[in-house]
């Protein structure tokens, strides 16, 4: 069908060279259905006939009038009918019948709908349940027994507010809510993908996020800084560098990068794509990255919108060196004034130079060692033969021939036949007793010839290079020798090869002058390293070379099409946009995103805050406010919250106060079957939805059980740069058991997350994660039952309890309930626990009592009441 374009509604309706392919009036006449039927000459799809059911689906669709999703063309005037693209309007608060239930406007919006549906909110949860819920929600830790007592003792209505204020003022708050944002920002401490190089300064961005939440940084500013903080004036007018602003752009810099991709332009545009994906999901709840290869299938986002944004990130500095080597070099940006950075760089260079000087001396000594032995190569080989072939002993043979014993031993080890073929030794193995001496001689001559050849080549090059330099001509390349050019030579000279100078022999072999030189150099190196400043660097972006971006046809970097100007999606920002004439456009993007005029920014964040309190968002697809996303269950409430959010100066803490002091947040999770039946998915929010502790909450609160949680804030728990050998455990993230710090501070190595993280649904740090999943699988249960970590916590708690002379066993049980489950134990439960401990099948060992108590503590930890927040 010549000219047929099925990409767009227009192309589809127009049809091919033979006109339209569907007839809505008489579907059976449609040529499309004819082709699918396989009964006409034109058969589609060519790979095989569709099933009857599928053909029936197509027929039904044609009968429906062949509806098509909203095409970008429909938004040509810049407008869109999509609900989320409309301006936020603060709606009137609805009237409700049950005036007493509603504590604030949030409640009125919810209650109005419940009343419409004939639903009633479930009664409030008891105070301790609310306290546990609020405490985990805001700081990710359980309430302490003292906090429980204080809250129970305060009978005033203000008690609830006091708790919320106390929690919001705690530095633990930023560690919990910052982590929510880090999920959205797909935060990690390494590049993931292929090489998984460390992002050595990623932690600065993490600490920035935690601080931003603790400081209640206005969200619009928070958004702007993450896109272009480096281009904004610092908060402190006296600061010469906006360090915080630079660090904030870690949001862009910390994505997954396939840094050993050989097709470097592709790598670069994959990075740009990753930034568009994360930025559009995080701030706008849009899947703009879908428009990389084709116009967005469902939302009014044409490919030109995508490349208009790509142009901004493509004009941003992303790498230190993209294509200088197989593995592209990451970009680290200074965050200190020039002189401080200069001092740091100078110190780095001094250290590198000093190391080079040390290697030079060592290299010359290694060469001297080799040259001493090279003229005896044949003797070494012949003596080695006697060892590996005839069972000779190294010591007497070395003595007999005047050889060094360890060199001879290494030579024998090297020459000993192996099962793998070594072509370089085949002439040696082919030699007979009669010819072996000659063969050895030939190996020696060849060896000496290679030394001479390489040295001559280098000398010649040095002369040529000097002459070229003097004449101002380009310096020729240094001669390059491959290991495979003379494999025998390479292996004999290898550090651990026969002629390599072993570590332990260096002292004896080195010339006195070398030793003296090395001693001085090493002392100097140590002094340099001791006074080296901390790297004043961040993983961040910068302005790059300004690119005149073209659409890349089908997303292929090697297939440029029409040019596009830097701008924002037309359906959102309109056609009439201020042109971006200088710089990358990041600053303009930052201001457009972090603005009350953007219809999505406040809505998307208000929805996230709601979701992180209530388990689900008002829009249940928090990263997708597009056509395929869900519509809000309460559009008016969402707009009300978005408007309040902006009015409050984009204060997230104000949002917590609003939501948490509502009756909605006070509801119980216990609903009767009738109540559940009426609101099965809780889309009317007629009850509170229980949730499982997230991995951070679980690990951190286990560490509070025995008081071992280390509350130190910030900084790096990972050392080094680059990556590690494939078989190295250093590839893995730091093991959670190796520190008592809060889980948010554990480095996240993308390619190898700690098992604990994957086990408890941390998610995938490679992509923006708007909502953790909750699974219930056996390996999690094994962790609770058998892990050393849980054993230690349970054991420590048990021994604390047993040590407390002031308590009897019943008192100990009650205390355990308060600490682990944050509630009192009923008399039944105390009896149950005491008979459990008394009946524990003992093995007769002395510590039977401690074993039983440890086991009892673990039963509490492994129970649903610990793992779930009600």
């Amino acid at each position, binding site marked *: 069908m010549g000219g047929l374009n099925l990409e767009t509604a227009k192309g589809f309706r127009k049809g091919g060279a033979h006109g339209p392919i569907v007839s809505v009036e008489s579907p059976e006449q449609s040529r499309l259905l004819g082709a699918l039927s396989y009964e006409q000459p034109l058969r589609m799809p060519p790979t095989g006939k569709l099933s009857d059911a599928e053909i029936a689906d197509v027929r039904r669709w044609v009968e429906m009038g062949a509806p098509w999703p909203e095409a970008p063309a429909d938004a040509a005037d810049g407008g869109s009918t999509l609900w989320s693209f409309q301006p936020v309007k603060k709606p009137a608060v609805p009237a409700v019948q049950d005036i007493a239930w509603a504590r604030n406007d949030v409640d009125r919006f919810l209650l109005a709908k419940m009343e419409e549906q004939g639903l009633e909110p479930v009664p409030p949860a008891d105070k301790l349940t609310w306290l546990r819920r609020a405490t985990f929600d805001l700081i990710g830790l359980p309430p302490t027994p003292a906090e429980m007592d204080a809250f129970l003792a305060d009978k005033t209505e203000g008690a609830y507010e006091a708790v919320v204020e106390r929690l919001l003022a705690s530095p633990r708050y930023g560690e919990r809510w910052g982590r929510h944002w880090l999920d959205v920002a797909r935060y990690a401490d390494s590049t993931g993908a292929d090489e998984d190089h460390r992002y050595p300064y990623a932690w600065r961005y993490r600490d920035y996020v935690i601080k931003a939440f603790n400081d209640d940084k206005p969200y619009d500013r928070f958004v702007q800084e993450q896109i272009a903080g480096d281009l904004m004036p610092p908060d402190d007018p006296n600061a010469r560098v906006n360090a915080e602003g630079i660090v904030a752009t870690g949001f862009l810099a910390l994505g997954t990068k396939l840094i050993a991709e050989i097709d470097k332009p592709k790598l670069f545009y994959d990075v740009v794509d990753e930034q568009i994906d994360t930025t559009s999901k995080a701030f706008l709840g849009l899947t703009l990255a879908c428009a990389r290869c084709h116009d967005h299938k469902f939302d009014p986002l044409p490919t030109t919108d995508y490349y208009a944004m790509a142009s901004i990130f493509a004009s941003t500095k992303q790498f230190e060196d993209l294509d200088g080597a*197989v593995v592209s070099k990451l970009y680290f940006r200074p965050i200190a004034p020039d002189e401080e950075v200069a001092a740091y760089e100078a110190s780095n260079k001094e250290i590198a130079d000093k190391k080079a000087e040390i290697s030079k001396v060592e290299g010359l000594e290694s060469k001297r060692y080799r040259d001493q032995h090279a003229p005896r190569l044949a003797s070494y080989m012949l003596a080695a033969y006697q060892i590996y072939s005839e069972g000779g002993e190294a010591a007497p043979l070395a003595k007999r021939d005047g050889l060094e014993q360890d060199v001879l031993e290494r030579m024998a080890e090297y020459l000993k036949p192996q099962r*793998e073929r070594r072509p370089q030794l085949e002439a040696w193995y082919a030699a007979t007793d009669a010819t072996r001496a000659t063969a050895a001689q030939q190996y020696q001559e060849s060896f000496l010839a290679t030394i001479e050849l390489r040295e001559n080549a280098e000398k010649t090059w040095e002369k040529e290079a000097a002459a070229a330099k003097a004449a101002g001509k380009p310096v020729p390349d240094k001669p390059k020798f491959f290991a495979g050019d003379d494999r025998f030579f390479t292996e004999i000279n290898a550090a651990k090869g026969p002629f390599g100078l072993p570590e332990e022999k260096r002292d004896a072999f080195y010339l006195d002058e070398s030793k003296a030189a090395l001693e001085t150099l090493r002392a100097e190196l140590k002094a340099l390293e001791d006074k080296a400043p901390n790297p004043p660097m961040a993983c961040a972006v910068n302005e790059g070379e300004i690119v005149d971006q073209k659409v890349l046809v089908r997303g292929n970097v090697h297939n440029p099409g029409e040019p596009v100007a830097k701008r924002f999606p037309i359906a959102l920002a309109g056609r009439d946009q201020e042109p971006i004439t200088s710089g990358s456009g990041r600053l303009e993007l930052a201001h457009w995103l972090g603005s009350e005029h953007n219809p999505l920014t406040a809505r998307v964040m208000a929805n996230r805050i709601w979701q992180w309190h209530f388990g689900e968002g008002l829009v249940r697809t928090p990263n997708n406010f597009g056509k395929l996303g869900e519509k809000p269950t309460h559009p008016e409430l969402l707009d009300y919250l978005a408007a309040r959010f902006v009015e409050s100066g984009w204060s997230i803490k104000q949002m917590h106060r609003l939501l948490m002091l509502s009756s909605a947040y006070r509801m119980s999770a216990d609903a009767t079957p009738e109540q559940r039946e009426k609101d099965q998915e809780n889309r009317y929010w007629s009850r509170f939805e229980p949730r499982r502790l997230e991995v951070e909450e679980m690990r951190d609160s286990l560490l509070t059980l025995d008081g071992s949680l280390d509350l130190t804030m910030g900084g790096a728990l990972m050392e080094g740069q680059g990556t590690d050998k494939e*078989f190295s455990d250093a590839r893995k993230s730091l093991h959670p058991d190796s520190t008592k710090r809060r889980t948010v501070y554990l480095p996240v190595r993308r*390619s190898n997350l700690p098992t604990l993280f994957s086990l408890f649904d941390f998610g*995938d740090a490679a992509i923006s994660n708007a909502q953790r999943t909750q699974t219930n699988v056996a390996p999690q249960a094994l962790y609770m*039952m058998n892990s050393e970590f849980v*054993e230690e916590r349970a054991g420590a708690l048990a021994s604390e309890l047993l040590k407390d002379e002031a308590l009897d066993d019943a008192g100990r049980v009650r205390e355990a309930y308060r600490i682990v489950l944050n509630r009192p134990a009923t008399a039944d439960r105390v009896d149950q626990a005491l008979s459990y401990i008394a009946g524990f099948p003992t093995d007769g060992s002395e510590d039977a009592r401690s074993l039983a108590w440890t086991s009892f503590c673990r039963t509490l930890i492994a129970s649903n009441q610990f793992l779930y927040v009600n």
Partner: protein
Amino acid sequence: MNSRQLNSRHLNPPVRSRREFLRRTSAGFGSLALASMLGADVQAPHPLAPKQPHFPARAKRVIFMFMHGGPSHIDTFDPKPALDKAHGQPLPFDRPLTFAEGSTGALMRSPWKFKQYGQSGLPVSELFPHVAQHVDDLCIVRSMVGDSVAHGGAVLQLNTGSNTFTRPSAGSWVIYGLGTENQNLPAFITLKPGLSHGGAKNWSSAFLPGIYQGTPVGHGGVSVDELMKEPIEHLHNSRLSMSQQRYELDMIQKMNRATLRGQDDDPDLEARIEALELAFRMQTEAPEAFDISKETEATKKLYGLDDDYTRDFGWQCLMARRLAERNVRFIQISHEYGPGNEVGWDAHSELIRLHTRTALMVDKPIAGLLTDLKAHGLLEDTLVVWGGEFGRTPISQAGDGRDHNPYGYTMWMAGAGVKGGYAYGATDEFGYYAVEDRMHIHDLHATMLHALGMHHDKLTYFYSGRNFRLTDVEGVVAEKVFA
């Protein structure tokens, strides 16, 4: 139940009620027995319950033998007489992008001789004398194509279909689509996977729920002896006896059941009760699966466990058979990238030494596995797939090595109704490009899913605004590989 929990609309249309839920998950699932064992009227949902394939399947399970590093196809299963003649000459056509751009040289012939084997007379080189004995069972795909010249992208693409984006691994898709018949062992097990070149991404479930991720047993660099001490983490309680632990578990379950609200729906809490019971059973079943002490000496010898060269991969192959017997759905074994602290297949230099060494490590174990699968009647319904992330160039690198070649290389399949003694597709006269019946990695995935009874374009998951699948928008089933 929250929509983000399993069995939600992502897998099925929304579950409207407990009754509907039970109806939908009851077919063919053994948790009724479990429910009665618990003495409770619960039937928890299980996302890994066995599911019917789209059409009758040839294969019930997959064993994927991954040759990390990239074995040379022209030195193993794809002989190139023209290369012998042109040895030392420059490549007569433009060289495509290679990994080591600066160090490639002229055409280099294979240092190994090929011989014809079996009834089919398919040629195999001296590197694989044991596998060669099974050539009549192999469908040798000589026309593999991938998109990445570097390991990272290539390994990710082979395992997940994408060399760029984060996608679920093939094993995750398979168990998402089919569930598993053995609830006492993980459905997708990967033995000694590499930590480099994507690491855990290669067995991750990405945006599929976490339950579909592969369970790694050890990793590259860990010795088999070390690994056998605790093949799966947290499988063993160091302080409690089995009966003490049962006593403890009964208490936990008593507490958990007390929080179930009467007749109330609470599939999430019920699932947790079940997970605890399953964990308890895994504690006995899994160690038994990994305990090879009862295998005969003859069997151990068959896999080369008596030889230092073959012991590691031999153990993996033997484990593959033991896990296949226990109906683990997707079994991946890996010959590691750097056995014994130097590269294996990835012979950028020293092709001769490194390929003889690496082939020695895997040849006998692979042949042993094929023999043993046959003896146990498992080859009929197990799809065995062998290969690396790419092949190697017909031109030399660094004098005596070969560079990466994703443009045309070899993998092979066996079992599960695959045509044996059959060569599918072909590369050009030097073995650089696939020219006939090209099988892209997407096509390989489509073909694997086909063997398992699934349409690759119907195994989808709705995420972030659209349906995703293992084969993206590509993938053609190579019908010809099936008998």
